[in-house]
């Protein structure tokens, strides 16, 4: 018998902890296919009713921003204070607007 020596692919696991909340990253695991990833996610990340819904995503399908792009991506919002309600000074009578 030939041994493949091939590691099962990595999957990222996202869990909705209860109805009304979004799925949140819980961790990762290895599985040969999506069905096994789902079963493993259930056993590894929801042994105590931590979730009502699970997403499993092949890790290699995720495109992530790079820490080097942090300035380019997020700094431009830094000087746009007028996007926040506190930027606007209104008369006391209407300041709870």
């Amino acid at each position, binding site marked *: 018998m030939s041994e493949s020596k091939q*590691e099962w692919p990595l999957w990222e696991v996202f869990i909705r902890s209860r109805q009304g909340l979004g799925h949140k990253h819980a961790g*990762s695991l290895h599985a040969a296919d999506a069905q096994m990833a789902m079963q493993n996610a259930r056993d590894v990340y929801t*042994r105590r009713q931590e979730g009502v819904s699970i997403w499993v995503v092949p890790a290699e399908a995720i495109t992530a921003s790079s*820490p080097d792009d942090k300035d380019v991506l997020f700094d431009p919002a830094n000087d746009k204070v007028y996007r926040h309600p506190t930027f606007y000074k209104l008369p006391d009578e209407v300041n709870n607007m």
Partner: protein
Amino acid sequence: MKIARMSPVEMNLEARFDAYVAEEKKIEPKDWMPDAYRKTLIRQISQHAHSEIVGMLPEGNWISRAPSLKRKAILLAKVQDEAGHGLYLYSAAETLGVTRDQMLQDLHAGKAKYSSIFNYPTLTWADMGAVGWLVDGAAIMNQVPLCKCSYGPYARAMVRVCKEESFHQRQGFQVMLNLAQGTPEQKAMAQDALNRWWWPSLMMFGPSDADSPHSAQSMKWNIKRFSNDELRQRFVDMTVPQAELLGLTLPDPDLKWNEARGHYDFGAINWDEFYNVIKGNGPCNKERLGARVKAYNDGAWVRDAANAYATKEATRQKNANASTHAA
């Protein structure tokens, strides 16, 4: 020698990293980090993962021998949790660039360490009580500060682990309590287990600060928060009244309250034994590692079959899609 090899840019990065960590900020997988920080974390997290997995063995031994269905279900749940802890931690280590296969190979080749406590045998049912109470208790003492560790994935894994550990310690204490309140034979069994597990549990905190090679740097990097001796003292102070409640005696004639220090004094730890077990000469080192290697080898055909099935299914799917589009 390390510094000499670093370029000015790297030195600048390292200074920024140190300042950033000192402000209690978190490092995430793709962030720049010093090589030594990465290596330290890979070593520590993989050792930690191995400890969880090897730690399943001494208790797994008792699942089929538990005295009642309830105890069997509890022990099964606890051992399954330890498997989960191992898996959270392997995943956290993988974010640093090491593969799962590499970590397992290092364990199986005897290159990677795991907690030496799991090289002691579990001889009676009372050991399930002593292990939960003392070994999981000491682990909690070590692990709670790691929830605030500077490396994000490790800290998050530890939060999950710590939430689950509390039941482990409580069920162990309850096993001890039931035995201690039982027949004289049962109480003697509990005392015997305590006698055998007490000192190895104290060793779980690692060598004294003076002999702990990585401690200072790990403290600076916010990987470690308290010294080994500090945590060990806390554990002793916490455990003494618990043993009193059980009506059992901690096997240390030097153990006594020190009013001036506000802590319990305790006897000298046999560090020769500790280093000897780490070197591979503990009562169960060969058995534990042998069991892990056997499980891995016996499972090879399952891993291969699952891979082959996944490949076949993916090909079938692709062909089906192709023919649909062609039609």
